[in-house]
């Protein structure tokens, strides 16, 4: 990571590698359907690092899973399109979609380091992923490939012989990254990859992720709630609240000039390491998805709310080529 402001990596004019349009996901609840993802649209340029930030109940993890069409009942994708380059994912047969997962779009899910198979060696877990997607390699070539992958993520090649309980948290997470990149995907989705890791190890893992992404030329979607991590890693950031993408902008703009009141309050509530100041949170509670306020979901907590906010849900408006905001006053 360089010391200067980020190069406008995400603002290339090349065709987007991933396009999400109007995605809607709902869960069937006893008292009626609950909209977890409400009409979300954004696009991802090649090589771009896109952050998806939000607090619990914002819908960001559901969003990530729905891109890969991995929503299980009682959840279902109600509508919208997801384009990977020129393939629209909802048009794919289940088998084709399965082949696309890991090969086209890979995911490092939340808690993945705790989901490694405890009775299978690391090299076999990577090898399984390769074999499952029809990689026809001799045993020796496969072993070499696995070793290369481990070295790519900064692990010693002997790691392949170990079992998951012999590895530290950071090493396990990097093994998961190795699985995610083994088929050279175009998009990597990482859902809270470092939330269980120490701050020092977190830096190592994120540095690894950034490096392999650059080498592969892949785009990354980083889902999380640590704004500091977003600030240091992503090019563009999307803020989710109550299932909607309330603001998307280049990371520098979000930090210095946030447009949506929620983003503004969120940034102000973050404790700084530079200066002791007052501790300021956002008053009120995040709304329950099944019991959303009328109009703009943020209006009960918003210092700028007016009558209009209670009645009318603000539409998502584009501001410039890479930014959108959903607020009546932005």
């Amino acid at each position: 990571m360089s010391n200067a402001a980020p190069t406008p990596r995400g603002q290339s004019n090349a065709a987007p590698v991933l396009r999400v349009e109007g995605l809607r996901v709902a869960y069937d609840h006893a008292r009626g359907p609950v909209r977890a993802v409400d009409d979300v649209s954004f696009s991802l340029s090649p090589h771009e690092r896109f952050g998806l930030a939000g607090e619990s109940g914002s819908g960001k993890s559901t969003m990530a899973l729905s891109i890969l069409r991995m929503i299980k009942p009682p959840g279902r994708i109600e509508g919208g399109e997801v384009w990977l380059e020129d393939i629209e994912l909802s048009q794919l047969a289940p088998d084709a979609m399965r082949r696309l997962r890991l090969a086209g779009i890979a995911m490092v899910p939340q808690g993945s380091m705790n989901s490694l198979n405890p009775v299978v060696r690391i090299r076999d877990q990577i090898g399984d992923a390769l074999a499952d997607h029809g990689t026809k390699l001799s045993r020796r070539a496969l072993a070499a490939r696995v070793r290369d992958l481990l070295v790519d993520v900064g692990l010693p090649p002997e790691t392949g012989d170990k079992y998951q309980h012999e590895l530290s948290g950071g090493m396990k997470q990097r093994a998961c990254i190795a699985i995610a990149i083994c088929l050279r995907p175009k998009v990597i989705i990482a859902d809270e990859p470092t939330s269980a890791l120490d701050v020092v190890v977190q830096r190592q893992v994120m540095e690894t992720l950034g490096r392999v992404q650059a080498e592969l030329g892949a785009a990354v979607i980083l889902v999380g709630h640590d704004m500091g991590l977003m600030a240091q890693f992503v090019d563009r950031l999307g803020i989710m609240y109550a299932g909607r993408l309330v603001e998307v902008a280049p990371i520098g703009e979000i930090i210095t000039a946030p447009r949506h009141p929620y983003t503004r309050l969120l940034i102000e509530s973050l404790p700084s390491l530079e200066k002791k100041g007052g501790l300021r949170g956002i008053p009120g509670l995040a709304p329950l998805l099944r019991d959303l306020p009328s109009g703009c979901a943020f209006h009960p907590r918003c210092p700028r709310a007016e009558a209009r906010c209670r009645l009318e849900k603000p539409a998502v408006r584009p501001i410039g080529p890479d930014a959108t905001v959903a607020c009546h006053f932005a």
Partner: protein
Amino acid sequence: MTALLELRDVTKTFAGGVLGRERKVALERFSFAIDSDRPRVTAVVGESGSGKTTLARLLLGLVPPSTGEVLFKGCDLHGLNAAGRQDFRHHVQAIFQDPYEVYNPFYRVDHVLTTPVRKFRLAASKSAGHALIEQALHAVGLQPGEILGRYPHQLSGGQRQRIMVARALLLRPRLIVADEPVSMVDASLRATILGSLRKLHEELGISILYITHDLATAYQVADSILVLYRATVAEAGDVEHVVQAPQHPYTQLLIGSIPRVSTLRDWAAEPVQGERDSTATGCRFADRCPAAMPRCRTASPPLFQTAPNRAAACFLYDGAPALPEGKVATVLSAETARQAPVPAA
């Protein structure tokens, strides 16, 4: 003047492994005292495996020390009779990390509030007790009408955690041990909860021991800080000085690794070398320390008092006098801290 709560040369080891043969040292020769007359907010910062949770449990009397003593008002905590234990619980309370686990799903949330009122006889009548509970809920920013009578699963994590603060507050303790109270709470709510803890300290003179891995919140909420690394104290002192000008190489690494919300992408690029080596002697940090000297691998550095209000356990500072055993608290309560300017890094 006896300290309210004191750990004297405490070591805590846990047996583990298949046949109980592996022994893990969670805290080593730790001495620490909490003063009764000058309440402070002290942060204990460490990563997993540093011993900070074990420290909390030792202070609360939830686990006994393997060696050493835990003293409450000068008496051995684990030798107290029922009345003594009651007194202890009245003076020392706790808030835990997980706002889900701490509620018995069988009862409404009122249960955790009415129980201490009853057991410690805080009120003469039921209505007086109810008033006390309402007052405590207001103090943490909750509306009694929205909280009382509900079951835990009907409330959010943030609300539940605030009820726990109210519970700790009911007894007007001298010390609240808060073990990662906001790490499972949303970012926007953390500041609110920590703010109310800080307010309790300022308005009611309650000492707070804030245990966390999050240096940023520790910096904002605490007056002094103790940095733990692998069961020992690496650095201690006034929080402003320690955070702005860290002396121990581990503290420097820790602070440098925290991603900041800033347009300056300065997340340091030098990779951290080495993994932990649990069998080595000498300074615990030597295997990862960029400034390691040969003597660091053979001897364990004591805490050197580099200023009236700070100390670091590193041979780089061996020109300074070494703190005597058990006196780390002196650098945590020096009043000179407030006025001294922060030296350049």
